[in-house]
């Protein structure tokens, strides 16, 4: 990281980049210090949208996954729509959502939720069904009810898959919120990045990008931490 900054500064002095296109780390630092309150506020708003959208999308996806387990018809009916949704580029949906849900936070939350939905759905559905068949035999031999099998076997088994899906979804949710803000917003870091690029305030734009990256990294880190705590029985992947 330090090395990168040094190389960047050095290149700056040697090549004299156009400050509008490629500002020096120093200029970005200045922009940061001058606007830190605004940067934190806007990032907070975007993170709020991301987290709420993430929760909405993940929760919905897990419930749908549970229904998938118990109804093949439901699965066959709904899954194609989920795939279609996932395949449609975010940018294309965003204006529609702003049209329907307005310029405020809600349209961004919906956007986040939509992008978080698919990875959580796929992973949860897998986790709920990829159970050792002998575990299911065991439960059947004890004449367990479907609810008992769900709560005692399927749900705990799904947790490692779910957490993997949540890690992916956390990053996507942030992307979703930012793209939503690009399309139509009055607040948020995406909005800040957008407007600062219009006004050619590139150092501020860079600062904004840095802030939201940090937000995304922290969110992901939180999910990774929760994964270790919740799926405590799993060997760490690394």
């Amino acid at each position, binding site marked *: 990281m330090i090395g990168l900054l040094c190389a960047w500064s050095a290149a700056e002095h040697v090549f004299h980049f156009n400050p509008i296109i490629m500002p020096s780390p120093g200029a970005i630092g200045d922009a940061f210090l001058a606007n830190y309150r605004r940067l934190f506020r806007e990032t907070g708003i975007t993170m709020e949208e991301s987290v709420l959208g993430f929760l909405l999308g993940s929760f919905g996806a897990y419930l749908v996954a549970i229904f998938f387990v118990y109804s093949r018809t439901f699965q066959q009916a709904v899954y194609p729509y989920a795939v279609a949704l996932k395949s449609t580029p975010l940018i294309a949906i965003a204006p529609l959502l702003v049209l329907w849900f307005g310029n405020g936070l809600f349209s961004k939350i919906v956007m986040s939720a939509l992008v978080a939905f698919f990875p959580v759905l796929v992973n949860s559905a897998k986790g709920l069904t990829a159970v050792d068949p002998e575990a299911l*035999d*065991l439960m*059947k031999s004890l*004449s367990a009810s479907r609810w*008992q099998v769900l709560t005692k076997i399927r749900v705990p088994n799904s947790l490692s898959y779910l957490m993997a899906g949540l890690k992916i979804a956390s990053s996507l949710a942030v992307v979703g919120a930012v793209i939503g803000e690009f399309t139509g917003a009055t607040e948020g870091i995406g909005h800040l990045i957008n407007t600062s690029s219009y006004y050619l305030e590139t150092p501020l734009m860079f600062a904004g990008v840095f802030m939201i990256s940090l937000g995304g990294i922290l969110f992901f880190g939180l999910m990774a931490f929760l994964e270790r705590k919740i799926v*405590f029985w799993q060997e760490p992947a690394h």
Partner: protein
Amino acid sequence: MSPSAPILEIRELNKVYHSGRDSVPAIGSVSFSVGRGEFVAIIGPSGCGKSTLLKIIGDLLEPSAGFVSVDGLSAHQARLKGRFSFVFQNPVLLPWRRIIDNVRLPLEVLGRHSREPEQLLQMVGLAGFEKRYPQELSGGMQHRAALARALTFDPQLLLLDEPFGALDEFTRDALNQQLLQIWQETGVTILFVTHGIGEALFLADRVIVLSGRPATVREAFKVPFPRPRPDALKETEYFQEVVKSLREKLE
């Protein structure tokens, strides 16, 4: 063993698998009965349908024909009443539960309380490991925990499908002795499916020999060794002769 009516009766059991236009007969016609508290071993060549047979008896699979009667009830009724207990080659312990909670699982599901999980863990030699998680235990210990779990709810019929097959010889012998001990203490009726002729003859009161697919009963005979049977029995000439003659008969 007991002069009263057999606890398990199997009459002309038949199982055919259909896939598309093909039909694969797994079990041809199997009939036998098992007395209360008996230890019966079922042996036969690989793929002959031993596991299928066990699952049909325990109502995990439906037969194509024939019937199973467990103490007067159908297999289905018996399963719903929690009369069966299965032990598979894979101990199937839930990794998110401590050992004691794993052993407790059948009691939670059935909603009844028969034997104290702690006592059973002590019986299988796992006292002190209650709070551990399955992945902290060796393979042999996991199998012992699975045995303890299989008994918490006082089943009538213990159905074991090559339970210790994945373990090394020494651990397997130890676990077989453990099983005999449990059998002596609880008096449960046991059906033990195995590959090993020697193992079957060492453990069981009676051995049922299945033919290759589709399975039928080739032979059913009483094991000629008296109890108790120490491990040393396996070294005796008599034992090895019996094993040899049975092996020759099967080939």
